[in-house]
């Protein structure tokens, strides 16, 4: 049996669930699922422009593991590009580092500091709060 995977830390889940190709005559039915850890790896490396070593610390995995996750993400994205298939974000062995909440009233996303009341920082309502 292979060794169990370590949990990867993810800062924030994307607030949409994927991509769809447009302008294709025949849509490929096969959907490619990009794990949250792979999304995070691409984000840290190519969006925030961190090095693999810095990014691996943030995700709480070793540098080689991070490189493997990143490589798998790149291959999946390339596959989706070439084969015109949709990408959907799902799964992966992840834990969320920061908890984000949503207030329905103000239409905002926010964090709550430790040991504080669970209320919206702007309208102070405690009811319309959802954990995301």
């Amino acid at each position: 049996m292979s060794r169990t995977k370590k949990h990867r830390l993810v800062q924030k889940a994307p607030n949409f669930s994927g991509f769809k190709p447009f302008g294709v005559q025949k849509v490929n039915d096969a959907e490619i699922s990009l794990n949250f850890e792979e999304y995070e790896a691409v984000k840290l490396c190519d969006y925030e422009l961190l090095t693999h070593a810095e990014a691996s610390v943030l995700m709480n995995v070793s540098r080689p593991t991070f490189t493997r996750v990143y490589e798998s993400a790149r291959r999946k994205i390339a596959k989706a590009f070439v084969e015109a298939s949709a990408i959907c974000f799902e799964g992966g062995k992840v834990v969320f580092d920061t908890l984000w909440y949503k207030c329905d009233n103000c239409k905002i996303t926010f964090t709550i500091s430790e040991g504080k009341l669970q209320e919206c920082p702007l309208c102070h309502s405690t009811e319309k709060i959802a954990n995301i």
Partner: protein
Amino acid sequence: MIIAVALNENHTEALVDEHFGRCAWFCIYDSENRKTEYIENTNRYTEEGAGCSSAKTLMQYGIQIAIAMRFGVKVVEFFRKNNIQMVIPETQKNLEEILKMINN
């Protein structure tokens, strides 16, 4: 309560900036005496760690809430350690709308 808002310009109709570290101005708002103060973000063109250095500057003002459309990973980490709330509006808003929401 002292709130920092990342803005693209320094007036009340300025929009909340897309990125916390790279915004042009910060508005420091004190909800008790309802005073606003604009400070220029001098770190916006630095290559690396713009978010963290501006976060440190804002800490000197004793902020408790930071508002921007997006926060970088290092800033999220920094604010979480220092128990500062981060707020992300879902739609683009200007400073006036934000202040109205705070005061209600």
